[in-house]
């Protein structure tokens, strides 16, 4: 960054103005005449449903979509900006941190921070002293106490996120864009991240934050711009008393969501799934117990929740039940409709009528290079085939049927799943498992990273499943969600089931105290 651009006029006029941005892909108008104005030193939130155009707008701003591929103009610090690459935008102090972190796991924190922007001496050699001292200073600014030489792979997601921010700071960032920064973080890490953002605001860094967590936006944003269907709807001043979460939701979905959870009258039948004395050990650290003698059951027509903090063993419990997909030295019994079943392999679990929709859609749930059709049929191929041969016409029909009934937004079912938005990917993942016609569905964080409108659709789908007599087990970090959709909730702490609460008598505070119960307390 050269000296001439480093000292723009402070304090007057917005730092960023995007005017009349229109971006068209073949057949789709992703953005249509979008206007965005961001003031100097504010935290500006952008809200919108999946596919509303938030990420596209940020890609236009950061030069991922080069100047000339969109209409409209961008004015940064009063001067027009026509970025052709990300490097162009970073040179003007615009840095974007994507939802999927882009750190190299085996390199140290310091190496990651200065990757591509190395502190050099004598031309091509790295000045390690300068690198590590500078990194330590940046880490202090984001509240990390780790040594700069720590490999990134040893850090949790929350700390990795902070390293990303430190990396942005090293580029002398003036406008920091965060895309869903807290989607993968627990409450404590999220809170810490928001604190850091507040501190950066005091230091004069302007922030654009894309988030689905409205509570978070209410807590941190100065102003919020709402985007719907590729258009700017309005910009709310969050200091105004009428800028409530409900107000934002109304703007995002274009209707008022009085109830965030669809109504359901539970019709509860016989027990479908019972897990007895389920114990699971860590896959690589023998002797470390991840799930400790867990007992639980789910009945037909019932939605049962599992609440627990990060590391409590929620996903470990679910994945070990689903075909021993996690852990070793697994003991205990799994019963479906009162009969003990083997779950040694995923295909046994599927045959027994168990389905597991993974928390991590991209890594564990879907084959992103394959199309919607093949992903929909991936787990239910036996249903589509005779003697090992797949009926492809039937497969296409099934995929179309599920696209319609689930309301998946895609031009057709031959589009690679990787090109869909998060909410629509989740609908494909659900389709895949509902098509296997399971008795019990285990949904691991079914609404993570998807917007309010799509969440409501997912809840409606859950209600439809239990209305059909299925049993549903939901794992979620969001207590209001569990309280909103479940009939019963188990709490999990350090691998042990610490409580079983009927939803009628459950409160967030009560659950939280069970979730934080110490072992042998």
């Amino acid at each position, binding site marked *: 960054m050269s000296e001439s651009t480093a000292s723009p006029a402070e304090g007057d006029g917005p730092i960023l103005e995007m005017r009349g941005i229109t971006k068209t892909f073949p057949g789709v108008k992703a953005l249509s005449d979008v206007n965005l104005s961001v003031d100097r030193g504010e935290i500006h939130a952008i809200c919108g449903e999946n596919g509303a155009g938030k990420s596209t707008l940020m890609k236009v701003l950061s030069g991922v979509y080069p100047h000339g591929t969109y209409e409209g103009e961008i004015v940064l610090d009063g001067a027009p900006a026509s970025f052709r690459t990300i490097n162009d935008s970073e040179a003007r102090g615009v840095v974007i941190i994507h939802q999927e972190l882009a750190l190299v796991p085996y390199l140290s924190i310091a190496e990651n921070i200065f990757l591509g922007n190395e502190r050099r001496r004598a031309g091509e050699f790295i000045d390690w002293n300068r690198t590590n001292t500078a990194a330590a200073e940046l880490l202090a600014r984001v509240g990390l106490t780790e040594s700069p030489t720590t490999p990134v792979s040893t850090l949790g997601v929350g700390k990795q996120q902070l390293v990303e921010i430190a990396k942005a700071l090293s580029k002398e960032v003036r406008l920091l864009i965060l895309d869903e920064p807290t989607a993968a973080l627990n409450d404590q890490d999220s809170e810490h991240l928001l604190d850091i953002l507040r501190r950066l605001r005091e230091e004069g860094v302007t922030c654009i934050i894309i988030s689905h967590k409205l509570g978070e936006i209410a807590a941190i944003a100065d102003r919020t711009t709402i985007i719907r269907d590729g258009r700017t709807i309005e910009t709310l001043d969050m200091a105004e008393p009428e800028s409530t979460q409900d107000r934002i939701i109304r703007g995002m979905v274009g209707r008022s969501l009085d109830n965030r959870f669809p109504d359901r009258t539970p019709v509860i039948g016989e027990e479908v799934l019972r897990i007895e004395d389920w114990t699971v050990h860590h896959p690589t650290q023998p002797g470390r117990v991840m799930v400790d003698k867990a007992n639980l059951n789910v009945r037909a027509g019932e939605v049962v929740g599992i609440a627990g903090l990060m590391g409590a063993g929620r996903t470990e419990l679910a994945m070990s039940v689903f075909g021993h997909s996690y852990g070793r030295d697994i003991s205990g019994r799994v019963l479906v409709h009162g009969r003990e079943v083997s779950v040694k392999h*995923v295909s046994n679990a599927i045959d027994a009528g168990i389905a597991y929709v993974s928390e991590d859609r991209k890594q564990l749930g879907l084959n992103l*290079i394959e199309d919607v059709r093949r992903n929909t049929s991936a*787990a239910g*191929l036996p249903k589509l085939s005779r003697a090992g*041969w*797949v009926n492809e*016409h039937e497969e296409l029909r099934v995929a179309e049927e599920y696209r319609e009934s689930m309301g998946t937004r895609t031009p057709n079912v031959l589009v690679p799943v990787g090109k869909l938005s998060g909410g629509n990917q989740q609908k494909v993942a659900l389709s895949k498992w509902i098509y296997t016609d399971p008795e019990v569905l285990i949904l691991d964080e079914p609404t993570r990273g998807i917007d309010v409108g799509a969440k409501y659709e997912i809840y409606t789908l859950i209600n439809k499943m239990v209305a059909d007599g299925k049993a549903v087990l939901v794992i979620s970090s969001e207590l209001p969600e569990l309280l909103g959709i479940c009939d019963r909730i188990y709490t999990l702490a350090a691998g042990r089931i610490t409580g079983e609460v009927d939803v009628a008598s459950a409160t967030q505070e009560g659950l939280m105290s069970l979730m934080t119960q110490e072992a042998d307390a």
Partner: protein
Amino acid sequence: MTTIGNLKDLITQNVRSSGIAFAFVVIVGMFAFMTDGRLLSPGNLSNLVLQYSYILILAIGMLIVIVGGHIDLSVGSVVALTGAIAAVVVVREGFPWWVGVLAAVATGLLIGVWQGFWVAYVGIPAFIVTLAGMLLFRGLTLLVLDNMSLSPFPGEYGQIGRGFLNGLLGGYGYDTLTLLIFGIAVAGYAVASYRNRRAKLSYNQDVEAIWLFAAKIVLVAAVVMWFAWQLATSRGLPIVLIVLAALIIAYTMITKHSIFGRHVYAIGGNLAAAQLSGVRVKRVNFLIFLNMGFLASIAGIVFSSRSNAAQPGAGEMFELDAIAACFIGGAAVTGGIGTIPGAMIGGLIMAVMSNGMSLLGVDQSVQQVVKGLVLLLAVGFDIWNKKRAGARTA
């Protein structure tokens, strides 16, 4: 939709999805022109089939290996070892030709079990397992053959790789049987396409206009029958072509329509997701290598039959030709993407270039340089093409 629009759509779609097929047509045209048509002469065409059939057979297995996210460096050595076993049984021990064939296939299957075990159940990367296999099976070939060539094979064995079906229904300057078999094949293709089109319609799927559909069939029929005519007026129908055609059809069906085929693509596309969808990953990986061993033994039989000998150095570098065929044909290095027809066209591109350059008297050294560059350019073009398509639809 208008006729012109329909045609334009078809062309742009096909250039994008099968740019490699167009490249093949261009390369054939270029060499046909440069060799004054000698490339497409009846004698040369049947030579081409005989000479490259074993690479194409290997490429079928290799494509499945690559789509599954693996690689197999050992197939050249396996070709040598299976050929050597056949030679020991038939030439040295004097058993009938079919015992030799069975022994070779059994050897290939055993090798498949061996490599499949290490890759699938022990979890060693295929690159390492098959690199070890490349050394191992070459060494065993030398041991079995005492470091010398074994020849000649008796007549029947030689027929597999060198023989022709000719004159069975009488010849009139052309072989009736060849034309008849090709005629039946073309008719079968037309009927199958028509039934597929009808099934699509009954499921309310989009199909191309009927005249376009008909034109496509007529074009394919014309090219195939012309090829048949060339063979019929030369030496007749090569037996190895029948083997190859049967394998291509069977494996295209398996990769496209069978559960096993789907599972291979699922594993290559996202291993963890496949596992969590109930795919028995170990078994599928094991079968991939078992199958590769089987096809390598077929290639070993064809090759030893054609060269009428088992040689210690047989099959060297075959693995690289087979791998190149797959990548030229659009397979992805990371797995999950690739088709049998693509790999076959990739193999044919290599074959036509080698053959064409030999006809032109180009030196072997230059041939290697050109083939290397073509591999690089073909994959480079493919990546560029995908990026362009991606930029338009992202």
